[in-house]
């Protein structure tokens, strides 16, 4: 179709070129013809003037002039005749030549009559000459008219040719539009639509619908989209298999974890109930010994009994602390906005009420808020502030500060004091349970406070660390994690065996 159009337009263009050339040729001829006709006419007008003057003054040079003018006209006509191919024009040209011959003859006759001086003959010759001149005019006019006609028809042809080209161009444009539209719909049908389905499939797969597959009709086509669809479907199948395996493993692990948790709970229960009972026996019966048999035991014996009781009670406290720590790990968490400043204020107020004689300056940064479990965060702050309170107790005045600072790109909260501090060499043992950097007689405690702090921070997905110097104080930093931990895997809700194909 396009080829045909191209051939047609090429032919038309060739025709148009020929027509243009023809038009140019006819236009040149018309110009030449017009000029020649004018020249011939002028020559005869000139000779007529010379002949009429000769009649009056009889000068021989007038005859000479007519002859040379005649020759000029003849030469022009001869030159012109060389490239005249049109037979009709040739005929008209012959008529012009003939008319000129006639004029020449009648002029010669007129000149002879003038030379003879016979008035009657002069008049007759003059009339004949005039008629012949009219005839020449007529044939010249015919000749010009033909030239004009030829030019007009060439022009018409050229115009018609142009119109044809314009028509052809219009057809071409219409055809091009039609082809473009067809191509558009073809591409839509064979590329865009499958591609769209592929994109939709990938999007919903990404959205968690792991059962999504691309219509097999697309996958079966051999083009790139088909190959992509095939590759996607294979990948989706693999991922779904992997995911199913993963879910299975998660379920297994969850079950194991739940079992372990249950075990831990029953262990905690046993610890709480069964381990404390013998301690009570040890303490109780030592007490009975003290009360009922004190006179039978000497001072050293009584001291031994006191030590037995103290140890039993200490073990009781330790057990209580272990249980507290274990309970901390098992409790549910509720995330909310927590006003750390307000919490710290109330904790410090409680500490002050227990030891009202202490001179402690306490400062808290304004607008200190965090997201987390309020109960756990309170426990955390209680431990840190009680720690600061305890380790500043040997100083006559003390400062405790609660604030926040940017540390390695995240917001870290801190509790700072100017108390006993610690040697940075032992910082590693600081947060481990039952690890203490000070003797019991110096600062009492079971060593569970900072372990508790670390447990709370870990449950929030954060971290904690400390900086300190002996007798210069300590700063305890903690972060609470970027956001609530979520279980992403549990969000794939559809059963894995459910297949979902996109509509064709």
């Amino acid at each position, binding site marked *: 179709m396009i080829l045909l159009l191209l051939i047609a337009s090429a032919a038309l263009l060739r025709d148009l070129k020929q027509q243009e050339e023809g038009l140019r040729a006819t236009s040149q001829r018309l110009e030449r013809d017009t000029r020649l006709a004018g020249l011939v006419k002028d020559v005869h007008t000139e000779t007529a003037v010379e002949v009429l003057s000769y009649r009056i003054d009889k000068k021989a040079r007038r005859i000479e002039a007519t002859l040379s003018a005649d020759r000029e006209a003849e030469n022009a006509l001869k030159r012109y005749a060389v490239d005249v191919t049109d037979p009709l024009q040739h005929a008209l040209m012959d008529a012009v030549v003939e008319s000129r011959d006639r004029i020449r003859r009648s002029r010669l006759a007129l000149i002879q009559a003038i030379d003879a001086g016979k008035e009657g003959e002069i008049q007759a010759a003059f009339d004949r000459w005039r008629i012949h001149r009219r005839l020449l005019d007529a044939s010249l006019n015919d000749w010009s008219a033909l030239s004009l006609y030829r030019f007009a028809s060439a022009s018409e042809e050229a115009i018609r040719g142009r119109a044809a080209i314009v028509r052809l161009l219009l057809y071409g444009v219409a055809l091009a539009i039609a082809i473009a539209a067809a191509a558009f719909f073809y591409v839509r049908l064979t590329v865009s639509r499958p591609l769209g389905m592929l994109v939709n499939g990938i999007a919903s797969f990404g959205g968690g619908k792991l059962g999504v597959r691309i219509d097999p009709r697309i996958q079966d086509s051999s083009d790139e989209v088909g190959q992509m669809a095939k590759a996607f479907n294979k990948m989706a199948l693999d991922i779904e298999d992997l995911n199913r395996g993963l879910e299975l493993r998660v379920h297994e692990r969850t079950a194991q974890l739940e079992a372990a948790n249950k075990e831990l709970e029953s262990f905690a229960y046993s610890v709480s*109930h*069964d381990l404390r009972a013998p301690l*009570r026996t040890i303490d109780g*019966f030592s007490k009975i010994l003290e009360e009922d048999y004190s006179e039978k035991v000497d001072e050293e014996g009584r001291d031994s009994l006191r030590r037995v*009781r103290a140890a*039993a009670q200490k073990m*009781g406290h330790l057990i209580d602390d272990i249980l507290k720590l274990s309970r901390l790990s098992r409790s549910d968490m509720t995330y909310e906005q927590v006003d750390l400043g307000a919490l710290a204020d109330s904790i410090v107020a409680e500490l002050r009420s227990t030891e009202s004689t202490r001179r402690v300056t306490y400062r808290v940064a304004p607008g200190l808020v965090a997201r987390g479990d309020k109960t756990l965060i309170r426990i955390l702050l209680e431990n840190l502030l009680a720690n600061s309170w305890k380790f500043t107790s040997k100083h006559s005045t003390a400062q405790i500060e609660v604030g926040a600072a940017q540390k390695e790109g995240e917001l870290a909260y801190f509790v700072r004091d100017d108390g006993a501090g610690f040697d940075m060499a032992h910082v590693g043992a600081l947060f481990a349970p039952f690890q203490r950097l000070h003797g019991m007689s110096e600062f009492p405690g079971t060593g569970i406070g900072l372990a508790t702090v670390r447990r709370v921070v870990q449950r929030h997905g954060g971290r904690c660390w400390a900086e300190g110097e002996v007798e210069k104080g300590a700063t305890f930093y903690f972060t609470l994690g970027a956001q609530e931990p979520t279980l992403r895997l549990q969000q794939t809700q559809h059963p894995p065996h459910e297949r979902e194909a996109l509509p064709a």
Partner: protein
Amino acid sequence: MNEGTILLVEDNPDDEKLTLRALKKNNIANPVKVVRDGQEALDYLFAPNSKLPSVVLLDLKLPKIGGLEVLKRLRADAARKVVPVVILTSSKEESDLLGGYSLGANSYIRKPVDFGQFSEAVRQLGMYWLVLNEAPPQDGLRAAQAKA
């Protein structure tokens, strides 16, 4: 002073002896009936025409039938649901506390390791349940028992 019986449900003989001593030391001279497991406790409490105790000191971890189960059966009985029950145990687990109170325990006391504190706790609960508190009328109990 109220002369009602104290029912002590306790399987640990050491704890039994310590509890009895604490009672004696605090001059609580009420008769004490000691049973050593949940079954025995129920047998005593549900014996026909028995006089109901003024207070039951109930341990939770008991052989055969647990303390919470004993409490549950007691509270399900029309005549015996008014008997004051004080849970006296080592456990401070939330589940035990919640279970005890929701089943209608009147008090929940955790036995401290320190005998001094333990003795003080026993003194206070004896003072409260045997001296200050007005026990439910025995006649009323009988009537309810007869009806049941």
